[in-house]
């Protein structure tokens, strides 16, 4: 194992961390958005919900942008192949995501109920759709994606848009939505009182329950589907193109990594424990504890997917041997090392000032505050 291979693994782990950050931070805002019209029944209630995440949604959203940027820098082939292959789905994601900044910023600037109602729906859609797409993308990784390369690495996607919305991917999409609604509801419980907190409490438990069931079904489903198995090729730490390896598919192989390293079973266990913890904490009205449990659940779920897939990142169903792995799709050693340096310096800094921002804006939001403040959303 040479330095380049270590850098590749470190970046695979860092990407996992960034995706977890994305899921936790963006997921909570999306959950608040997706459940906006249920948790908030009046205009003021909805404004309370929006203002709970108001000072933070913008910063949280950067996890999403950073996720994109990090894939681009560390695994350019994944960025190029996946984003172009998932074209229509990516557009859905983008178009719903770009509604959000505008929804937050413009919704409450005009008092007209029709205007506000329209933006509320926009926020619901822009909360739900990206989370479904995010989950469905992960689901499709297990199924493999129909793409292949020409001699010079031009990629061609040969599937249809509907092929990306197969039953398994839809299920993982709903799992992701359920987890984000759970986190969003716990966030509302953190920041609001009274009837809103009560509604959010019920929703958090329901969403948590759905998530547990779907995560369990997902595990069984993955066990029964054909998995990808790396047979040979240049391997870790060697500059290469995806044209030089051999990969086969056979049922059950997605669990090979768990068989080889039983300690990995802790990761899905963490997912289940986190979801269960979040439900129980919501029940006990300990929403902060619940929020942190939910974050742990995300770590478990994304960690489980990563543990099963490793070293695959984007398997090709057209020709399994063209599958993109950690070894054949990463950047050069020099880029990976520079980016490890920047990440190691800036991510702790980001966590620190994000924590400070949350601390400054701590406390409950009340209807009076929202109505009394010209700056409120």
């Amino acid at each position, binding site marked *: 194992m040479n330095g380049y291979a270590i850098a590749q693994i470190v970046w695979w782990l860092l990407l996992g961390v960034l995706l977890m950050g994305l899921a936790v931070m963006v997921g909570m805002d999306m959950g608040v958005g997706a459940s906006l019209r249920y948790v908030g029944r009046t205009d003021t209630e909805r404004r309370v919900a929006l203002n709970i995440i108001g000072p933070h949604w913008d*910063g949280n959203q950067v996890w999403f942008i*950073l996720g*994109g940027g990090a894939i681009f820098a560390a695994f350019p082939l994944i960025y190029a192949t996946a984003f172009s292959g998932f074209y229509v789905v990516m557009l859905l994601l983008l178009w719903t995501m770009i509604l959000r900044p505008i929804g937050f*910023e413009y919704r409450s600037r005009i008092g007209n109920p029709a205007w506000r109602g329209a933006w509320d729906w926009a926020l619901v859609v822009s909360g739900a759709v990206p989370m479904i797409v995010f989950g469905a993308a992960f689901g499709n990784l297990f199924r493999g994606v129909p793409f292949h390369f020409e*001699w010079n*690495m031009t990629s061609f996607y040969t599937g249809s848009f509907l092929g990306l919305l197969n039953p398994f991917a839809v299920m993982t999409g709903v799992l992701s939505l359920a987890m984000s609604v759970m986190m969003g509801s716990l966030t509302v419980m953190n920041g609001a009182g009274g009837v809103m907190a009560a509604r959010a409490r019920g929703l958090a438990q329901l969403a948590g329950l759905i998530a547990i069931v779907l995560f369990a079904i997902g595990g069984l489903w993955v066990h029964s589907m054909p998995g990808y198995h790396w047979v040979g090729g240049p391997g870790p730490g060697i500059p290469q193109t995806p044209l030089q390896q051999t990969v086969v598919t056979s049922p059950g192989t997605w669990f090979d990594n768990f068989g080889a390293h039983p300690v990995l079973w802790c990761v899905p266990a963490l997912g289940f424990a986190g979801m269960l913890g979040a439900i129980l904490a919501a029940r006990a009205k300990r929403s902060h504890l619940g929020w942190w449990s939910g974050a742990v659940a995300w770590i478990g779920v994304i960690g489980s997917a990563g543990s099963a897939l490793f070293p695959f990142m984007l398997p090709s169903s057209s020709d399994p041997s063209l599958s993109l792995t950690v070894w054949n799709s990463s950047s050069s050693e020099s880029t990976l090392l520079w980016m490890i340096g920047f990440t190691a310096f800036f991510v702790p800094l980001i966590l620190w000032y994000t924590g400070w921002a949350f601390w400054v804006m701590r406390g409950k939001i009340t209807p009076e505050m929202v109505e009394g403040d010209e700056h409120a959303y």
Partner: protein
Amino acid sequence: MINGTVVDLSRLQFAATALYHFLFVPLTLGMSFLLAAMETVYVTTGRPIYRQMAMFWGRLFMINFALGVATGLTMEFQFGTNWSFYSSFVGDIFGAPLAIEGLMAFFMESTFIGLMVFGWHRLSKGQHLAVTWLVALASNLSALWILVANGFMQDPQGAAFDPTTMRMHLTSFQDLIFSPDAQSKFVHTSIAGYVTGAIFVAGVSAYYLLRKRHVDLAKRSFRMAVLFGVLATIGVVTLGDALGFVDAKAQPTKLAAMEGLWKTEEAPLPLNLIAFPSQAKQRNYGAVQIPAVLSLLETHSLYGTVPAIDALERQAARQVEDGIPAVQALEALSRNPQDPAALAQFDAHREDLGYGFLVQRYAPDLARVTPAEIRQAAKDSIPPVAAVFWSFRVMVGLGLAMLAFFVLATLYSLRNRVQEKTWLLKLALWMIPLPFLADEAGWLVAELGRQPWTVYGVLPTWMSASTHSVGYMAFSLIGFVVLYSTFIAIEMYLMVRTIRLGPAEPGGPRDRESAPRPMLSGRPFAAAPQVAKRED
């Protein structure tokens, strides 16, 4: 094979979304530092009017900022969705500054902007000022990394092609970030943003002064904006000159197109002030020239010359011929990465690999390339001259007009005679669209002038696009047009409405700051901490 219509539609979509994004970005870059300036005066002098100013302009800033963020999302993902070959080919280098932008700048900007808006009473004066400065710094650092990435497309420094991975690899991070093109382009663009912000604030202030509303606020804003603007405009022009000087070496075809230089001439070269270039005839019609000025501008010497299009085309033809064996060797290496003969052939011709790609558009099988195809590829190496020539003149003309306006406005503002000069105030109002036009024209010069390359001299545009169907491209293009048109209509409406409404005057009906009510931004500093508290 790659479909030319798809490439054209991808280019159209990229240009449309980038130009749209670039309507909002410069205002953010400039206004953020103007807000910092206003708040600095507030904190140092303690006069509340400056806080009122920072808050009011902050509201307009946020309306603009929301669309900047929203449309920026598209840009971050569009390289992958629509330029997938480009992304995999240069992601090793190009992706890094984009990721660093997120890590270093965008996170900081977005996190602190929440505190800037909501934190007025929760932070001490000094803390809030620091937050505002950080937002301004971060938004410009964000521009820095984006333009480092763009600088790589204009003048690929610090990278080399690796035939084992079939991609470009980073060879020197320092060369990448300190590339002269990246440096001068960043400073030019950032300061162009300052000019945009200054014109906007001066124009809106002039609107209030004309109507004699919010006079105290407006005349202070006007004064600060014009001083800010006059210095910034001087900076933009200086850096524009520096950029031309850099381009003369790094991107001779862009420079030749900007100046409409068809035929090689002896120094000193005259400047084409006005001309109507014809790409087909390779000449200018109706040229109005100033002797010797071009040599002075581009080489800072009377005896310097820059290559003209005829010479550049001849050189490109030679490079195409040299690039063909490089591409052929690469095809052999794709089949067998260890092929020693192919490696040797590749190494002998690697410098011109990109030119080999350029001709592959016409000759997919390079073994059967014809001299006519090579000539065509060489012609392709010249960007669309008329478009670049005129975008450049629009940008420079508007820049000089703004410089003249700012000099005049500074003069009257410093004499405290702005309010009497209604013609100047009216002029200021009409100046508002100018910087936006100039910014867009500047983008066109930079990116049209880079054609036919996505990475100058290395990767042609025609290869870079994703292999989508025309139907997909039509779908996405229509989607963007519908969404973006709706957004701009809403944004303009809210902007105008907020400006008409004006700032909340102290003691007025909309002054919630001094009302004894609990506020989101004004909850007591020592509110009970939220951490792990039971909800009941």
